[in-house]
């Protein structure tokens, strides 16, 4: 009996001392930086767009664009603008749209092997600056000669990001449906010559103490 009581008392103190130690300021242990596969799920979980979504959607759009006859079968390679300007974010997702459009453009340029040409319209200011210097005779004409104007485009990548969020406070469940719409717009006639979607829905539930 005596031993049992002593054991119980000591046990109480051990539990309490452990708890008290936890109540004191604690420093989280750090970890070394490690490389991860960009197509792997993020370690930090949420219902938003992750790196693997950006990689997957960009690669899917590139593969699909490379099979569009209007782009690939023309004797004169079409000129295309791929930048984030008309890729509208109407969603609840805070995102750098250029992550997606840059990846599409870079992979298209590398894969199309000259069958499409790309206009860097977002850098038009830099081009104009150089052309003015050439016009003023402050620099020479370079090695590729002069043109009457900068390149006009035949097509432009446009699109929209949309989301629908849902929350159930009874269960603490959050879900988000995300839809990325990609389209190729004829810049003379206004026709949409290609469209594709990338969509996903994510759901999670936080711990009860945060609801």
């Amino acid at each position, binding site marked *: 009996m005596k031993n049992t009581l002593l054991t119980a008392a000591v046990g109480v103190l051990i539990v309490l001392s452990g708890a008290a130690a936890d109540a004191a300021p604690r420093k989280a242990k750090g970890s070394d930086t490690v490389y991860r596969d960009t197509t792997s799920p993020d370690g930090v979980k*949420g219902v938003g767009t992750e790196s693997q979504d950006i990689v997957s959607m960009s690669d899917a759009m590139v593969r699909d664009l490379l099979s569009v006859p209007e782009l690939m079968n023309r004797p004169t390679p079409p000129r295309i603008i791929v930048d984030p300007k008309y890729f509208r974010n109407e969603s609840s997702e805070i995102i750098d749209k250029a992550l997606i459009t840059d990846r599409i453009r870079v992979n298209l340029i590398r894969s199309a092997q000259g069958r499409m040409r790309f206009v860097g319209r977002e850098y038009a200011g830099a081009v104009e600056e150089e052309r003015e210097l050439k016009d003023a005779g402050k620099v020479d004409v370079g090695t590729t000669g002069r043109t009457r104007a900068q390149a006009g485009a035949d097509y432009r990548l446009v699109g929209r990001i949309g989301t629908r969020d849902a929350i159930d*406070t009874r269960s603490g469940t959050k879900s988000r449906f995300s839809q990325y719409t990609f389209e190729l717009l004829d810049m003379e006639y206004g026709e949409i010559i290609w469209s594709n979607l990338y969509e996903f829905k994510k759901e999670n539930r936080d711990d009860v103490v945060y609801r």
Partner: protein
Amino acid sequence: MPKPALCVLLGGLALAGGAFAAPPSSLPPLPYDAGPEPFVERLESDRPTNWVLNQMEIGARAFWRGDYALAKSALDDAIQRIDAVFSDSESAAKARRLWYDEGSKDFKGEPYERAMVFLYRGLIFLRDGDYENARAAFRRGQLQDAFAEEDQNRSDFAALVFLEAWASHLNRDLDLSQEALAQLKRLRPDFGGFAEKDDTLVFAETGLAPRKLGDGASHSYFVYRRGKPIGENQVQVVNGAAAMQAYPIEDIYYQASTRGGREIDKILQGKAQFKATTGGVGSFLADTSVTLSSVGAALDAGGQFGDAMAAVGAVSGVLLIVSSSTKPQADVRTWSSLPDTVHVFTLAGGVPTPPLTARFLKSGTPLEGAEKPLRCETDPNRKTLCLVRAH
């Protein structure tokens, strides 16, 4: 029972009372107008469970000082941690466990505090001319508020709805702007909207942050109280000789002490419990022509809530957070640099922005010496954001 063993046991229990009756010690409060530096230091010295709270303080204080780089990084970090799911986190498990108090969990803030993180982040996006991400931030803020409601995707955080409309207006997404304004009309029927040519937003804050005061046996719950002292509740934007009344779009204390327009009684086992009869949450908006009952009416129209809200009162919401295995110990950690009321005003100011000042009033009477210049910045698209706070 042998005396030594009894003493040890009783001593242990006494220690238990001493160790767990009070919330875990937190660092002392700092003045409302203190800069972000002390909180940057606290990131290292304070408990790790207060990380988000300290980032919130850094974010708001750096924002109002004009240190947007620091504010941005602090708010982004807070957002990441708010968004993170803590389903298997150790501290959440401890907060549920016997003997552990509510305050030992990682702080993510109450819905109004989480919403304000997105509000400030959205304002920085506006300042940078990134209207789409600003709109996304304001929408995300509304979702934080919607957390507290019974149904999905409803929010009565009018300041965020207004800012969503303004971001769409600046981005020339007129359809989206109109949609948000229609939603705002249900929450603030007397808000006049903004003109098509308006290009300048004045965002003003008055009063001090809502307070959370522990109450009940072992401080098992806390009550909300309006920040004090509050010397002003109205703002006029002065352009030369002309003084124009800013619209009081949001009462932060009201947001803290209600959910979806209903007064909180408690949250029990993860579910908000509302008072059976509406008591009435005092609001300065009622003093400044914004009728709070309209919010209830709007929500009634949506078929969600039965009781309309009462008018002015001093009763605050009571929040009790317990789970079946948690020793009651309310989490009274508070984002102390929030305002009491948010006011907005829009105009076609053009560039350069005319010299504007703000005059603060209490129930229509100007406070002596309380006129401040607005801090205005114009983005690359020639749209201007002007900021001013009373304190």
